[in-house]
C-alpha cells in the first residue's frame, strides 16, 4: 500500500503545497515592496544619521552617493531585492558591518527563545485544551477558561516585571536578565531564559488552548465519536486516538499562528529581560534609520510568518487523508 499511497500523496497533496508555496512567495514579494517603501517614509536617512550633527550638506550628499541613496527608489528597491535573492541583505552603516553578520549574531537567540517558548507552551496548551474540551461546560472547563483568560488579561510587561520581582528579586531563583555568554552551559542558558520563555508562553498558551478546545469540541460533535463511545472505548482514549488525528489540522493552524507571535512580538520581553533578540534589533534599526537592517529584519519576520503558515497548511493537508490520498 505504501506505493500507491505515496503516489497519491504526490499526486494530490503536492500540487496543493506547491500552490501554497507559490502564493507565499507572491506575498513575500508584496511584503518586500511594502517594507521597502515604508522604510523610505521614515524621516531622515542613514547618511544623516551616520554623519551625526556635524554633517554638512555636501558631506551628506557624498555619502548618499557612496551608498547609492541618491538613486531613485524603484532602482534601489530592485537592487535591494536582487541582493536579498542572492543572500546579500546589504551593509549596515550604523553597526559598520554587513547586515548578514548583525543578524547572524541575533537570529539564533530569537530562534532559541521562540523554540523554547513553543516547547513549553504547546504541550501545556494542548493539555488544557483537551482537558477543557473533554469536560466541557463543567467546573473544570470553566476554571481552566478563567485561568487562561487571566493569563492574557494583563499587559505582558506587567506580567514579566512581576515575574522578575518574585523569582529574581525576592526568591533569587532565576536571573532577571537573559544575557548569557555564548559559552555558557546549557543549564545556565535554560535558567537565564526561563522567565522570558514563561512570559512569552503565558501570552500564547491561552490563545492556543482556546483554539484547541474549540477544534476538539467541533470533532466531539461528529458521529464517529459517538460511534467510538458505543464501541465501548473510554472517553479519554476516544479523544486521544480518534479525535486528535482529526483535529490536528485546525490545532496546528492555531498553534503556528500563535507561535509566529513569538518572533516578532517578543519586543517587550526582549526589552525587559535585556535579551539580544531580533525584535529589539529591529526596533534599534528603526530608530537609527538603519534601513538595510530594518528591511532585512522585516523580511525575516514576514518570511517566518509565511513559513509557519505554510507549515500549518501542509500539516492540514497531510493530516487529512482525503487530501493525502484519494
Amino acid at each position, binding site marked *: *500500500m505504501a506505493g500507491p499511497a505515496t503516489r497519491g500523496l504526490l499526486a494530490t497533496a503536492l500540487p496543493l503545497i506547491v500552490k501554497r508555496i507559490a502564493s507565499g512567495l507572491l506575498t513575500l514579494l508584496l511584503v518586500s515592496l511594502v517594507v521597502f517603501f515604508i522604510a523610505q517614509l521614515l524621516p531622515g536617512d542613514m547618511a544623516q544619521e551616520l554623519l551625526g550633527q556635524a554633517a554638512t550638506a555636501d558631506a551628506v550628499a557624498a555619502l548618499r552617493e557612496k551608498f547609492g541613496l541618491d538613486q531613485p527608489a524603484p532602482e534601489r528597491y530592485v537592487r535591494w531585492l536582487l541582493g536579498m535573492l542572492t543572500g546579500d541583505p546589504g551593509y549596515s552603516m550604523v553597526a559598520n558591518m554587513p547586515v548578514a553578520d548583525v543578524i547572524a549574531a541575533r537570529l539564533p537567540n530569537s530562534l532559541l527563545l521562540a523554540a523554547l517558548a513553543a516547547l513549553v507552551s504547546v504541550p501545556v496548551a494542548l493539555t488544557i485544551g483537551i482537558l477543557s474540551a473533554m469536560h466541557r461546560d463543567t467546573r473544570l472547563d470553566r476554571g481552566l477558561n478563567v485561568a487562561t483568560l487571566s493569563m492574557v488579561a494583563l499587559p505582558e510587561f506587567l506580567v514579566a516585571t512581576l515575574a522578575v520581582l518574585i523569582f529574581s528579586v525576592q526568591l533569587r531563583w532565576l536571573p532577571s536578565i537573559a544575557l548569557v555568554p555564548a559559552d555558557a552551559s546549557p543549564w545556565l542558558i535554560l535558567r537565564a531564559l526561563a522567565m522570558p520563555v514563561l512570559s512569552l508562553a503565558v501570552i500564547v498558551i491561552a490563545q492556543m488552548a482556546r483554539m484547541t478546545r474549540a477544534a476538539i469540541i467541533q470533532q466531539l460533535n*461528529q*458521529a*464517529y465519536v*459517538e*460511534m*467510538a*463511545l*458505543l*464501541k*465501548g*472505548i*473510554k472517553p479519554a482514549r476516544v479523544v486521544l*486516538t*480518534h479525535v486528535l*488525528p*482529526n483535529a490536528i489540522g485546525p490545532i496546528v493552524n492555531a498553534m503556528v499562528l500563535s507561535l509566529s507571535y513569538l518572533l516578532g512580538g517578543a519586543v517587550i520581553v526582549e526589552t525587559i529581560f535585556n535579551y539580544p533578540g531580533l525584535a529589539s534589533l529591529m526596533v534599534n534599526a528603526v530608530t537609527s534609520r538603519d534601513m538595510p537592517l530594518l528591511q532585512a529584519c522585516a523580511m525575516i519576520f514576514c518570511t517566518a510568518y509565511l513559513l509557519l503558515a505554510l507549515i500549518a497548511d501542509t500539516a492540514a493537508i497531510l*493530516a*487529512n*487523508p*482525503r487530501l493525502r*490520498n*484519494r
Partner: protein
Amino acid sequence: MNSHVEVRGLNVVAGGTSIVADVGFSIPRGGVLALIGESGSGKTTIAMALMGYARLGCRIAGGTVRVGDKDVLSLDEDGLAALRGDRVSYIAQSAAASFNPSRRIMDQVVEPAVNHGRMDRKAAEAKAVALFRSLALPDPDSIGERYPHQLSGGQLQRLMAAMALITGPELVILDEPTTALDVTTQIEVLRAFKQAVREQGATAVYVSHDLAVVAQMADAIVVLNKGRVRENGAAVQVLQQPQDEYTRTLMAAARPERVAVEGPGAVRAPLLEIKGLNAGYGATPILRDINLTIARGATLGVIGESGSGKSTLARVIAGMLPPSSGSVSFDGVRLPPALSMRNKEQCRRIQLVFQNADTALNPAHSVGDIIGRPLAFYHGLKGAAAVRRVAELLDLIKLPASLAGRACGGLSGGQKQRINLARALAAKPDLIMCDEVTSALDTVVGAAILDLLAELKRELGLAYLFISHDIATVRAIADDIMVLYAGTQVETGRRQGYDAVARHPYTDLLIGSVPELRPGWLEEQGARPVPPAIRQPKDGADLCRFLPRCSWRVSGTCDQFTPPRRPTPGGNTILCHRPEGASEGAS
C-alpha cells in the same frame, strides 16, 4: 424469563420534556425486533438506551433494560464501556459519518475486539477479513487498508456491520442502516445483514422508518409515535392487520398512489427543450448527451442514484452551471448558458426548489420576507399588495397567513418545504424544478407535499421537472420519466412505458430493488446473477456506463462499442446494445 432482551417502563427526558415515555418490549434470543416510527418518535433514543447511552442533553430517567443477565441501566461507566461494542453492538445510520475519516478501516473494525481483549490484533484482523468475505465486500483482504473516503456508502455500511459483529455480540442494534443508501445498494446490504446476523445467532433490534424494509428484516414490530408505543406485535400481524390508527396511516403513506392527473406528452412546441447537453465541473464530465423536452403543464420525472447527475441537470437548466456543449431552449428561445447572461424574466420563469428546506430558507429572514422577495424582485409588489399576495400564497400552500411574521427556524420540516415551494410560486413561473423535495421528509409529510404539487399543477398549469431517487414517488407524479445513470440518460419514456418488462438493465435493477411491503420478498428475489465475464474494455471507447454492474452485458459488444439509442416495445428509448434491454435475459 425466556426473553433475551427485556425493556420495562423506559423513560428518557431531554431538558424538562419527556421524549421516551414508558416504553417496554421484549425480544427472544435470536429474534429481530423492529422499532418503527417517524422522526421524533424516539426510536433511536430507545435503541441507544439499550446500551445505557443517552446523547448530550438527554437523560435516562427510569425503567429497566435487561440484556441477557445484565441489568444495563444499573451499570457504572466502566461496566457500560465493557458492555458496549462487546456484548451489545451498534450499527449507525450514516456509516460515512460514523467512521473516523483519518484512520484506516481495519484499525477501526478490529478496535472493539482488541479493546475488549477478545483477541489479539492478528486474530482480529483474520476474523475481520472473514467477515468482509461473508458480507460480500470486494477485495476482502485489502479493503481494510483503505480510508473511509475511498469507499462507497454501501461498502461502509457493510464494513460497519463487520465492526459490529467482530466480537460476536449477543445483541446487535441496527439504526436505519440502509436509509442513506441507494435502493439498488440497499437490497444487497439488507441481504448481507440478514445473513450475517443469522449466522451469529445474535438478537437484533432494527430501527427504521421504512415499513417495506422492516418487513424483510423483523420478526416483531414495535410502532412508535412521539416516544410512546402505539402497537407491538408480530411482523406479519402488524403489516397485514394493523390495529392502531397511526400504524394504518404509516402503511398508507408507504405506498404512494398516483396523485397527478395525466399531463400532455411530448408536443411540437415544448416549454423546455434540451439537446445534446454535456456538462461538468472543471475537467470532470458529469452529464453526457442529455436530450429531453417538457411540455407546458407536463411533469418530467428524473430518477437516478446519488451521483447520477440529477441535481447537476437542474443546475444547468437554472443557469448555475453553464454546459460545456448543447443547448437549453425555453419556450422556443435558446437560453444563455450562464445565469449572469440571463435576464430577469428568464430567471423568473424557471424556479428551482431545493431538496433541503432547512438550508434553502435563510434563517435570518421571516417567512414574509422569503416569500415577499420574489414578489418585489420580479413583480415590483410592495407594501399592502405584497402582504396580501403573501397571504394568498400561504393560503395556496395551506399554511395560515399568520406565519408571515415568523422566522422559519421554529417551523416543522413539512411547513418549511411548503414555504420553499411558495417562494418558487411567488415568481409565477412556468416551470418548477423540484430537487428531491420529499426525500428529507417523513413519508406521511412527503405524501402531503406530493398532493400539494399535483394540486398546484392542476390549478396553475405548471410544468415540473421532478427529481427523485425513489421510483415510487416519481411514478406517483410524473408523466414522463427519464432514468439517469452516471450522467447518461439510459432510458426515457412515458410513465406507462416503465410498466413493460422490456427496459434498460439498470431500470430493471432499480425497479426490482424496491422492497415490497410484505415479509419474504427479500428471500424471493434471490441473489442477483453475477455479471458474465467480458473482455478487457476497449481503451478510450465511450462504453456503456452500466457495463461493470450489468448482469446482461455481452462480451465482444458491450465492452467494445458505444451503445446506441433504440426504442423498446413499451415505447421508451433506451441506451443499450441489447435491442430489448433486460427483457431477453429476464425471461
